[in-house]
């Protein structure tokens, strides 16, 4: 609670010689004025402006709803789910790999042009290439060496995977 004494102390601490100050000789009268009846009409104008600006858009109306942290989290999770769903359905990277990379480029081309890609391939991708390539070409290692065998059977393939200690389950997943 601010008392009159505090106010006087404030004033004295700042302006101890205030009686000598030119400011002390001035009349504090307000030099400005307002149009007639201004303060009688102002509340009505403010109320009208409030009603006018109070009409919020749908988005503004939803803002208080999303101001709660729980709903903000739900909004983030929902947005991420939507983004991943769209990517899963349209998957632009998948189109590059399966449509262009596998159908337009043969394994020979791939190994000649970009052996480092084969070297980095995971086992599941290696088998996918094997199945997709209907010419019977097969890669016996993950790109470090290449042998061709046009008469390769599924049994040969399984034996190969076992020798290489690669899970045979992968082939059934394709």
């Amino acid at each position, binding site marked *: 609670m601010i008392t009159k004494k505090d106010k006087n102390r404030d004033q004295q601490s700042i302006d101890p010689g205030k009686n000598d*100050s030119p400011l002390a000789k001035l009349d504090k009268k*307000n030099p400005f004025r*307002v149009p007639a009846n201004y303060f009688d009409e102002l509340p009505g104008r403010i109320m009208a402006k409030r009603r006018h600006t109070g009409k919020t858009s749908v988005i503004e109306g939803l803002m208080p709803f999303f101001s709660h942290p729980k709903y903000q989290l739900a909004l983030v999770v929902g947005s991420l789910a939507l983004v991943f769903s769209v990517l899963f359905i349209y998957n632009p990277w998948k189109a590059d790999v399966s449509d262009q990379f596998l159908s337009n480029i043969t394994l020979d081309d791939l190994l000649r042009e970009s052996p480092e890609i084969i070297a980095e391939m995971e086992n599941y991708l290696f088998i996918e290439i094997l199945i997709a390539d209907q010419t019977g070409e097969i890669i016996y290692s993950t790109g470090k060496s290449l042998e061709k065998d046009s008469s390769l059977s599924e049994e040969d393939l399984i034996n190969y995977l076992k020798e290489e200690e690669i899970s045979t389950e992968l082939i059934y997943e394709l």
Partner: protein
Amino acid sequence: MRFYQSTILEDQSDKSLLELCLSKDSENYGFNLVVRKYQKQIYWHIRRMVINHSDADDLVQETFVKVWRNMKKFRQESSLYTWIYRIATNETLSFLQRKKLKYMIRPGNIESHLAGKLTDDNFFDGNEVQLRLQKALLSLPGKQRLVFNLKYYSDMTFEEMSVVLDTSVGALKASHHIAVKKIEKYLINY
């Protein structure tokens, strides 16, 4: 009648006004009372800063619309009076900042523009000495002018000012002291 009205308003505590504003049934009535209680203080606070009546009129309306919009968020950590002053001050300083930017790309400056408005304004009827005081005030930086006005005209304590301006009491006292010295110097020299 007016005396009766103002007595009713003065009797209404800020707490009871807030209760009226926050109740769905009485929100319009409550807000109307808040406007009637504080409109003059807020208007004059803004007017002394922007000088021009039309600008002050726009700003006082903006201030109360903001008060209305944020009424439910008001946590009552300060008094309703200082909270409204704070909104009005922020609105006014933003307005002056926008004007300042506008005048940065034109010849002259915002202070000389406002000083020109003083004499052109139909709603200024001060005498020669008061005109000099207003011109002296316009020679001060915005924050010093604000501090001086709150102390000199609104008779606000430094503690209240500290809440309104979010500045320490010490800094406000220093700012006020410098403002007083500059005004005294201006009044003696011009």
